[in-house]
């Protein structure tokens, strides 16, 4: 695996995780969490 590809993989995963967590945080705040 090339260095550039490794960096791209890390960036893609980080951005996806960040968007996921943000969306779930907003949904929990506005709709309500699961108890």
């Amino acid at each position, binding site marked *: 695996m090339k260095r550039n590809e490794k960096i791209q993989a890390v960036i*893609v995963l980080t951005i*996806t995780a960040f968007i996921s967590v943000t969306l779930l945080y907003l*949904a929990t705040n506005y709709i309500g969490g699961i108890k």
Partner: protein
Amino acid sequence: MKTIWNGITKENAVFSLLLGLCSTLAVTTTFESSYMMGVCVLVVLILSNTIISIIRKLVPDSVQIPTFVLIIGTIVTLLEIILYRYVPNLYSSFGIYLPLIVVNCIVLGRALNVASKEKPTKSILDAIGIGVGFTVALMVIGAIREIIGNNTITIIKSLSSVTGNRLMYRVFEPNEMFPISFLLTPAGAFFIIGLIFTIVQYLKGRKKHESD
């Protein structure tokens, strides 16, 4: 249109590919929970296929699976939150099988084999075909199981918190033979799936024989 029709008939997830059997066996005890599980999988398939197909060129092969699982997991959790808030009865009747959509082989399979390779339009059409095919399969199994196993057909019960009215019918009165409650167990569901699978394979074979 051909892609959608293929997903419903030739590539039907349950009756042709035998995929997603976990939720099929567990959830199809009533007609209502069957079609609602189908709709949930349809929504997850359409959203995940669309997003994955749009970002497919940005995701390197080595991190495809973790990225796709993250996306599918987020969509399923959002769906869970919405169902818990608005249709709590349905949420509790699905139990563990709602979060398990994340690892449903149909959703992951379509993400890896179709959405990560094709353009968004084709991916969405494929998701609609496979999702509708899965929903139809669950509805058929759910209807047979509920009618023979409980003598009833439940169209709206858990959803009454949203629709405001219930729709449940007694198909026929209990007698010496019916209901056969064995059909409400997972083994009964497997029996029904086996029977329908046999009929589908027989029809496929006959069609192929005729075309030869």
